[in-house]
């Protein structure tokens, strides 16, 4: 990365950095931190209350199901449903239902299914069902696998389509009738159709080039905010005159356990609380200002390997809670973080490649080219939940702190490269 190249059009930003070079190391915030803890606003919330879901996101109500903050899902049935007799269903309707994305994502998202999956970018998290009709399975087994596969395998990643109300019994009968017609391999037309051959996506764009990554514009914006006086009459610059030196590694050591808040504190929540306590700026989480500052503070630590302070018993307990939360089944689709990014990692869900936890953190906040927006990791968590039909929590929820701490711990050693750029 060449700083001069990036800031070539920005005389103001260049001036800040040049001026900073003459400031002696006494302004180093890390050195100060050893003497005195950074002031934090500890009473108010760090994001808006009541929390309102982002405009344009699905508005369905998922309150009957588990969230990261609340257990609500009804217990799983213990035994398979008994059928009165052989299933009579409409296979043609079943073929439509397995591809219906409005009903929880469609079967094809995870399973290739013969002709139904031939050109619909099927996934491969679950087995290829293209020849299930030859497998000699009984109707009752097929029905229960769709209705609620937990009766056969409590650890399954298959959503309980019947128990959680995505499909009624007759609809599942129709799908079973369709499954029984599947007797020949899926006719993939191209390599891209076949999840076994589809090439794994590689992100090659220059994420630190402001011509390629509009996320970089936040760096300029943050440098302007840095000099802007808040309600208390001070700016960031009043205490941190040499941001480049002071924050060279800081973001790579976050999140951390914060005893004053009794929770894990990450960069975005720190920005909201520290700004309020010092300059008086109201940069709540998920505001443009907060995102810009978070991008900038991460950007300053780019190249530094992620290394967390996990020594204290409280930090260890937070990590353990984060791990447990990552395994909690959430939402109507009844999925845990570890279902997609553990059991199903390195597989396709429809056209989306499911990554392992390692590599999902070092580029956040990241630019989303599909949305023309910067997302921090908390918004990413929120979207994961709404996607699996679970209610999200406010971005400063303590559960997200634990989860982010655990995710960051799985990314230790990776070097920050922020802002990232992703679809």
């Amino acid at each position, binding site marked *: 990365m060449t700083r001069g*190249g990036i800031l*070539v*059009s*920005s005389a103001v930003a260049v001036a800040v950095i040049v001026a900073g070079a003459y400031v002696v190391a006494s302004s180093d915030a890390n050195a100060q931190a050893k003497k005195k803890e950074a002031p934090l606003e500890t009473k108010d919330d760090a994001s808006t209350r009541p929390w309102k879901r982002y405009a344009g996101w699905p508005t369905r109500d998922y309150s009957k199901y588990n969230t990261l903050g609340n257990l609500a899902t009804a217990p799983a049935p213990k035994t398979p449903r008994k059928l009165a007799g052989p299933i009579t269903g409409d296979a043609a309707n079943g073929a439509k239902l397995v591809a219906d994305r409005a009903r929880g994502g469609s079967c094809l998202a995870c399973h290739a299914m013969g002709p139904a999956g031939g050109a619909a970018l099927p996934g491969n998290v679950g087995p290829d069902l293209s020849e299930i009709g030859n497998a000699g399975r009984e109707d009752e087994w097929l029905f229960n696998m769709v209705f609620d596969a937990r009766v056969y395998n409590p650890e399954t990643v298959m959503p309980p389509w019947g128990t959680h109300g995505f499909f009624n019994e007759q609809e599942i009968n129709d799908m079973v009738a369709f499954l029984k017609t599947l007797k020949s391999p899926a006719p993939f037309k191209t390599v891209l159709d076949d999840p076994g051959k589809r090439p794994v996506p590689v992100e090659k764009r220059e994420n630190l*080039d*402001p*011509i390629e990554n*509009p996320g970089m*514009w936040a760096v*300029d*914006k943050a440098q*302007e905010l840095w000099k802007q006086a808040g309600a208390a009459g001070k700016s960031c610059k009043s205490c941190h005159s040499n941001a480049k030196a002071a924050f060279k590694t800081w973001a790579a050591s976050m999140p951390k356990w914060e005893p004053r808040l009794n929770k894990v504190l990450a960069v975005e929540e720190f920005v909201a609380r520290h700004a309020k306590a010092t300059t008086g700026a109201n940069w709540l989480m998920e505001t443009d200002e907060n995102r810009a500052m978070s991008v900038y503070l991460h950007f300053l630590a780019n190249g530094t390997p992620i290394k967390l302070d996990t020594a204290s018993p409280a930090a260890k307990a937070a990590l353990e809670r984060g791990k447990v939360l990552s395994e909690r089944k959430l939402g109507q689709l009844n999925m845990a973080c570890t279902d997609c990014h553990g059991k199903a990692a390195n597989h396709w869900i429809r056209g989306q490649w499911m990554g392992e936890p390692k590599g999902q953190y070092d580029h956040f906040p990241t630019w989303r080219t599909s949305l*023309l927006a910067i997302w921090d990791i908390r918004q990413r968590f929120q979207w994961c939940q709404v996607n699996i039909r679970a209610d999200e929590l406010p971005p400063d929820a303590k559960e997200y702190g634990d989860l982010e701490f655990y995710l960051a711990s799985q990314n230790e050693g990776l070097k920050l490269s922020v802002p990232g750029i992703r679809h």
Partner: protein
Amino acid sequence: MAEKPRLKLPKEAKKGEVIEIKTLMPHTMESGQRKDKDGKTIPRKIINKFTAEFNGKPVFSANLDPAIAANPYMQFYAKVDASGTFKFTWTDDDGTVITAEEKITVG
């Protein structure tokens, strides 16, 4: 906050060298085809013209149309024979003209 245009070109070049110039103008490029929540057409507002000059002489220009995506990005080449200044202009539908300049030393 109005975004600044982004420029990328070498600071130095040899006499007669063909250099690559990249420009990017942060702009929504509202096409005039979209409708808002109440069904009313969102008025067109795009960058409709881009020009590049070197020492006052035109080197590149383009008329932009509504199908061009947000944040129009131009990449083009110019031969430089002497030191001087590139001047870029973007003309908005509302009449605003945004300019940016960059110097290059030819040695």
